């Protein structure tokens, strides 16, 4: 056996703890979910077997599928706004001084350093009926009664974008930073206006970062739970809320398992789609 293959085996051995961890905390639960999703739940009692009741219910109860697509739509909207708001921030981080870069990085990451409850209560103070925005608008005479800024989809999107922005900005910043600035300088020196340089060079070369950021934010948004509960006043329903409700209130593990697998499949599909697009972009 060659020395290289010896080292490869050594490296594989180093992977063992990680593999064991994944098997115990990911693959085994997934298999259990799969088994449970085919079980039957009747009169509060679960019977293990091979029944398709839960999958049939997903497609026929007229609500689960609707909420699934609602979750996909909400995730797409959140991803869109993260991209729109995150791209300029990443661009600025690329061109500013190291000190300013640190300040911007801190601002972007700061929501992740705060507890979700504290963060949402802070939003309450800003967006609530007697919050800063509504008070100011009423005092300035711009509105006679408080605007509904939370306990609706707007509130949910705002609060989720606030947190997930960092997951968009960081990959974008990495991609933008890896662009050789001499290419842009060459284009400028040949007379290309700055918007042309951006559209022809910066934007296409940052596509891997855009794809990575969008995939990450979309996946995270598909699993968002607590923020819609608090900021949506329970009016904005997502699939994770339905799964939680099924387990916590109905004790219906089989149906919750089927919904969880559906969510997992959707996320898996999104990852495959995203890597396909990245490959396509890479070839071009």
């Amino acid at each position, binding site marked *: 056996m060659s020395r290289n293959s010896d080292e490869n085996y050594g490296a594989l051995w180093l992977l063992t703890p990680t593999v064991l961890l994944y098997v115990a905390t990911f693959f085994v639960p997934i298999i259990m979910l799969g088994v449970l999703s085919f079980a039957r739940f009747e009169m509060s009692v679960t019977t293990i077997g091979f029944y398709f009741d839960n999958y049939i219910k997903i497609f026929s109860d007229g609500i689960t599928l609707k909420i699934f697509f609602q979750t996909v739509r909400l995730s797409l909207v959140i991803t869109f706004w993260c991209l729109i708001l995150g791209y300029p921030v990443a661009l600025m981080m690329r061109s500013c001084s190291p000190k300013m870069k640190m300040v911007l990085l801190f601002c972007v990451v700061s929501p992740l350093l705060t507890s979700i409850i504290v963060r949402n209560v802070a939003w*309450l103070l800003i967006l609530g009926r007697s919050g800063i925005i509504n008070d100011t608008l009423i005092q300035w005479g711009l509105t006679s009664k408080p605007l509904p800024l939370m306990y609706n989809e707007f509130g949910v999107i705002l609060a989720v974008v606030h947190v997930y922005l960092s997951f968009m900005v960081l990959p974008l910043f990495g991609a933008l930073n890896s662009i050789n600035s001499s290419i842009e300088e060459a284009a400028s020196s040949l007379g290309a206006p700055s918007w042309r340089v951006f559209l022809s060079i910066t934007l296409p070369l940052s596509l891997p970062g855009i794809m990575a950021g969008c995939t990450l934010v979309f996946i995270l948004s598909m699993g968002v739970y607590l923020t819609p*509960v608090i900021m949506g*006043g329970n009016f904005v*329903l997502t699939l994770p809320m*339905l799964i939680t409700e099924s387990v916590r209130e*109905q*004790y219906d593990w089989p149906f919750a398992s089927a919904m969880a697998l559906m969510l997992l499949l959707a996320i898996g599909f999104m990852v495959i789609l995203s890597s396909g697009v990245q490959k396509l972009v890479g070839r071009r």
Partner: protein
Amino acid sequence: MNKPIDKKMKLNRRTVIKSALGAGAVFSTPYFFVKANAASDPKVLNMYNFDGSLGEFYTKHWYDPFIDKFDIKMNHIKLKGSRVPLEKVQAQIAAGKPETDVMPMHQDQVIFAERNNLAMEVDASAIPEFANYYDQGVTKYGPKMVVWCYGLAYNTELVKPAPTSWKVLWDPEYAGRVAVNEGLKDQTLQMVNLAFKGSPYPVDAETFKHLSNLRPSLVSLWSSGADAEQLFRNGEIVMTPFWNGRVTKLRAEGLPLKFATPEEGFFVRSSVYGIPRGAANPDMAHEWLNWVIGAGPQKKMVEYGYGTFNKNVEHTPEEAANVIVADPEVMKYAISEDFNQILDNGKDWTDMWNKWKSS
């Protein structure tokens, strides 16, 4: 020349990994040992505790004095919200290791526990305090405690005159200033039926028609008592169906709130404190149940704002007004709930509820 260095490096790498794994094992073994033994130690009681002020009450009046008196240790397992995660306990019982020795169950949860054989029958001879308990408070799975009422909480400065009917929630004057409970949606649905049909059942399309009429007025569908408290504190709402104990607590904070028992009827519930099957310390759990249903700890609960089944607990006029259940005149309006129906129709009601929400 390179080989000895390479060998040395390999040796170092291996040594480092081995040392790290060895150290990890050495340091983690006592932890797992202690954890494994804590569950079966007869001197350690594993107890669920709620978050917020009710959790503080439990610690101060129901847990710490017992620890001192019986010289034991207690593990507190914090709960989010007001329901024990019975689905989790069920999985733990199946695995042979429930994390708790006592579990407070809502009455629909008692039926679920019975059907799935999750709770053990208590040994009444080990709970002599049952002799001082009203019969309604004694079940084969344990005593009922924390008697709470579900009526209408309202801001006395902004809701005038004082409400006497659930229908006031639909009053256009309070549009955009009211909320209902999503956490115990069965009570919300029964409340709508009481308001318009005079009976809590059946939950049907007509129920949701009335809810749809209420929807433009709703600020939020709150999911825990803490959420509703916050809505009152921030001035988001002036009225919501709520629990009497929470109102007592908010009044103590200085909020101008009162609890009304609507003329169509209101709800009275309590929790059964049971012992999960396979609990590590059933003897100590019996000991605690016997101690906690005694007049002393139960009087503390009355002072906090919830009722008791202990015959020997005296109420001051203010306490009687707060706990509601001590006033026979008011209790005439209490309605009896069908918890079998609530449990068995829960899935259908939830589907209808979600359809209504996403419509």
